[in-house]
């Protein structure tokens, strides 16, 4: 007995959808907090419609067939949006695989009399949906990666604030490793701020940089040179004892750059350069 899978599925579409929805609603991991049942139903129906209209006896063996493009597109969309909404991969996986259960249940009822055909058809349907499942994971991970990339960008943005500590003095605390991309952001921010605020002294504080190797040093030297070209003086502060020893052993020459151990001493140095003086206010004599 030969079964036309397309016709069978078309005919039983409603039943499959009901079954699928029941499967999903029965599952403990259903996330009603993330998506309402109505939305879920609309989403499921759209996916099932696409699948049922595109599947036929010819292409059921081949999940890569262009006939399934729409289905995969919808599936990818669902998967990515789920990744963004905060679904776990397991929940997304269960969503797709519960469709398989629904279809298989329906097939079982329809092709009761012919075990061989039932087996062949079930096997094919199973394989097709498994490969859809794999596609879901791929796009799911891609969706997550996008989230991570965006966060990386955001971290790069927020981790390089330029602070105006005094009129004409900027401070830039650097936390974490300085790589080429970060140096670029640091340099751009710093140079722009020098222009905007008309500052003449910039303090680069590297207390939060875990290790200064030759690449980091090179980036620092470049930043200092660029600052000087803008007519401002650059002080590097926050050089810890172990960093100082390492830099010497590495053979990096920082002697052309003004360096200080702490931000406080750098600030004091900057005050001297600007001919400013910080003094304790004299208390009234009669209070003694």
């Amino acid at each position, binding site marked *: 007995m030969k079964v036309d899978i397309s016709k069978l599925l078309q005919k039983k579409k409603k039943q499959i959808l009901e079954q699928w929805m029941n499967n999903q609603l029965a599952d403990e991991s259903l996330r009603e907090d993330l998506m309402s049942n109505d939305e879920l139903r609309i989403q499921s129906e759209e996916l099932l419609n696409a699948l049922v209209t595109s599947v036929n006896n010819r292409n059921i063996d081949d999940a890569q067939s262009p006939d399934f493009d729409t289905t995969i597109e919808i599936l990818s969309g669902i998967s990515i949006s789920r990744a963004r909404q905060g679904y776990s991969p397991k929940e997304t996986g269960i969503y797709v695989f519960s469709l398989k259960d629904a279809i298989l249940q329906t097939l079982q009822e329809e092709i009761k009399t012919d075990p061989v055909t039932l087996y062949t058809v079930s096997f094919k349907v199973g394989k097709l949906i498994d490969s859809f499942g794999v596609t879901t994971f791929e796009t799911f991970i891609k969706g997550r990666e996008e989230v991570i990339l965006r966060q990386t960008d955001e971290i790069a943005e927020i981790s390089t604030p330029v602070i105006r500590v005094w009129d004409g003095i900027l401070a830039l605390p650097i936390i974490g*490793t300085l*790589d080429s991309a970060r140096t670029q952001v640091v340099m751009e921010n710093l140079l722009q701020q020098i222009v905007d605020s008309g500052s003449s002294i910039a303090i680069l504080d590297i207390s939060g940089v*875990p*290790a*200064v*190797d*030759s*690449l980091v*040093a*090179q980036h620092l030297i470049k930043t200092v040179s660029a600052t000087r070209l803008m007519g401002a003086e650059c002080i590097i502060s926050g050089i810890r*004892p*172990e*960093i100082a*020893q*390492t830099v010497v*052993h*590495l*053979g*990096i020459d920082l002697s052309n750059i003004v360096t200080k151990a702490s931000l406080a001493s750098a600030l004091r140095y900057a005050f001297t350069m600007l001919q400013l003086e910080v003094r304790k206010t004299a208390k009234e004599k009669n209070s003694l």
Partner: protein
Amino acid sequence: MIIVLSKDTLVIQKEQDVVPFRNRIKEYAVKIGMGLVNQTKLITAASELVRNMLRYGGGGTTIIEVVSKGRENGIRLTFQDKGPGIKDIQQAMKDGFSTGKSLGLGLPGARRLVNEFDIKSVVGKGTTVIVTKWKNG
């Protein structure tokens, strides 16, 4: 005689792998009670070598080992890449020599920061650098 107490292998393929690698070294260094200065020296040397591996060797494999020789404990790092290799190692070990646009302090600097330094390179096959830093070295 050197005894290996523990061994850890990490694959370095992109810039993002460098920070976890350094943190791993730090963990081991803290575990054997290495001082802060030696820790920083070791991590900086590792950072230089791993960057070289990424930049010139296209990434590779690193091995972090806790080793023991007599009473002294230390950390041995192996950097292995399958890159183009170094033609003239003597020249590469000189201060200020670089085929890239860097300061040219990576290899010679790293040698000064560790206690034992061994480099082997075959043109067309790749480069292997093995460094050891003793706890009180």
